[in-house]
């Protein structure tokens, strides 16, 4: 199993805390933010490679999920985002996918399903990263003239 690194962003504190414990138990490195602003701050502080996937609630006071997504994708394009939504905001989640989110999940969700999507998103991110590394290596070898 790949050791994923996840940032959960939701204003429901008890939800975040329990989800963190459960994911940690499954070997996921988890961090939490309780608003869009806090999430962006944490991502900037830790750097893009530290976090693989962001689980992002759509409805939050202050900066909402869609706005946070847009800024994450601008500032940290490699990070994959899974939108988390209640039924009434499915449209927003779909809108999020159009704007670059990896997938969306409906609340309340089964942890197995979340893990599945989390792993897939992590794989995608790692793949993306390795392709970039490979391209960078090719670039270096080209410069050396090998």
């Amino acid at each position: 199993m790949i050791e994923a690194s996840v940032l959960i962003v939701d204003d429901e504190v008890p939800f975040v805390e329990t989800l963190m414990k459960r994911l940690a138990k499954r070997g996921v490195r988890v961090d939490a933010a309780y608003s869009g602003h806090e999430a962006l701050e944490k991502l900037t502080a830790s750097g893009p490679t530290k976090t693989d996937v962001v689980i992002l609630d759509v409805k939050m006071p202050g900066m909402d999920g869609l706005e946070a997504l847009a800024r994450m994708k601008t500032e940290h394009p490699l990070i994959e985002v899974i939108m988390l939504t209640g039924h009434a905001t499915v449209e927003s989640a779909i809108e999020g996918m159009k704007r670059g989110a990896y997938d969306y999940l409906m609340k309340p969700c089964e942890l197995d399903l979340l893990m599945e999507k989390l792993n897939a998103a992590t794989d995608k991110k790692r793949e993306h990263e390795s392709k970039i590394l490979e391209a960078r290596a090719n670039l270096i070898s080209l410069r050396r003239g090998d």
Partner: protein
Amino acid sequence: MTPAKGADQETAPRFSVRLAVVVLALMIIAPLVISGAVNLYQFRKAYKNKVSSELSVMIERHSLTVDSFIDDRLSDIRVIAREHPIERLRQPNFLRLVLNVMREEYHGAFVDLGLVSSDGIQVAYAGPFNLQMADYSAAPWFHEAMISENFISDVFAGLRGSPHFIVATQRKVGDEIFVVKATIDFEAFNALVENLRIGNAGFAFIFNREGDFQTSPRFEVALNRPPYVDLLEGRIRSDRITVLEGEDVLRRRSIFTIAPLKQGQWFLCYQQETSDAFAALRHVQEFAIVVLIIVSLAAIFMGYVISRNLAQRIALAHHDRNMMAHQVIETGRLASIGELAAGIAHEINNPVAIMVQEAGWIEDLLGEDEPASDSNLEEIGRAVGQIRTQGDRCKEITYKLLSFARKTDPTVREVNLNDIVDEVIGLTSQKTRYANVLIETELSPDLPTIQASPSELQQVLLNLVNNAIDAIERPGGVVTVATRPAGDEVVLEVRDTGKGIPEANLARIFDPFFTTKPVGQGTGLGLSICYGIVEKMGGRITVESEIEKGTTFTVFLPREAPAGVGNAESDLEEEGS
């Protein structure tokens, strides 16, 4: 301020079928009567002129005939008097011979023939009476005949006792004057005018300037009454043909046509009842009246049919409109419940998600090798506690929804508006949190209670608050709900710092189905329902708005409910729940 209109429930507009029939029938009949009357008047005038001119022509022709008859007879006598020597005229046998020839020639117009000497003695006579040597020296006609060369007498009885008149001419022999005279048969003369007839009741007769009949009229005539008396006394010109209308001796409207005869000594008169003379005109009038009656009846019938049809359509349209109004309000209530339910269902998702996570966490812990470790038990206890907390949260949310859904009751009771405000703000708290809108209240602490349906007030306020929240597009907007007393009313104000309502939309916002929200997000019923409910409560609702500054809805509610509102059998209740 915009006076608002909306789905008010009023009784059917009054439409009087009777009035409509009268108006429609008048619209058809009046022009018909006017044009008919004008036409008839013109026709009557033309017809009278025609009758009058026809009568004039006829009388003129007949007056000429009568005049020429008399002149011809005079000429005959003159020829006899001049052509034959006096010796022969003195012989009765010769006169008899001449008389016979003339009688043959003129079908018996001449009765007799005589020669009268200057002393008035009839020296020769031929005729049916024994008048040889008759003495006329005292007869008025003889004196006249001696004065003028030619003379025509009036009709008189004379010596023979039967009506006749005399034509006479002078024959001078030396210094002596003889008068040759002939008597004209009255019957023959009378026949000249007797035959003059038009229509059923027209008749002609001749009278002289003294007012004596020269022929016998077929019907009774009084020459001492107008117009004859006017003619005889010179008030009517007698030297030409005159057509007059007046009353006859039996006071029937009649036409009198009078022509002078014998150089104005006699008058030929034709008298005819107007009704007879204008019989054709009367027929036309009768026909016109029959047509008018038929058309009027048809117009009234048509008017009735059209009006009844119209009345039925109006009643039907009004019924449909009332049904629609009821349906609109009911639909709006369902829509606001639906909207609220959707919002609350979403709100429930959060606690449910937490409960699911906590349950999953407990499963996780129970699946460990040593599930009953102290730390696990403590964690499970905490999770169960969290589940209970979130369950309570769910219960609270569903309670709010149910309390709203259940309160679809228009029954009026004593209500403190401030309590309603608190309830509604509680219902919308989640929505305002996510929309980043701050809700402020300015509730008057000494607000009097009002008589109203709490459920309807809640619906009004919820609609206004929801609209206010939706109107705020930028984070940090403020919605203020204020209450204050104002005389016999209480005032409820919902202000927002939103985008405002354009002037063009302001007049329409209370119209049913008017919405500026995207398709699927607004029914356009909220404000029209607010309007309907407030109107029903006997209150009013107004709106003020300024673009980019915000909008204020102000609801004025009377402290006492108007009569007939809010009983169990209220309109809404009947059709709705």
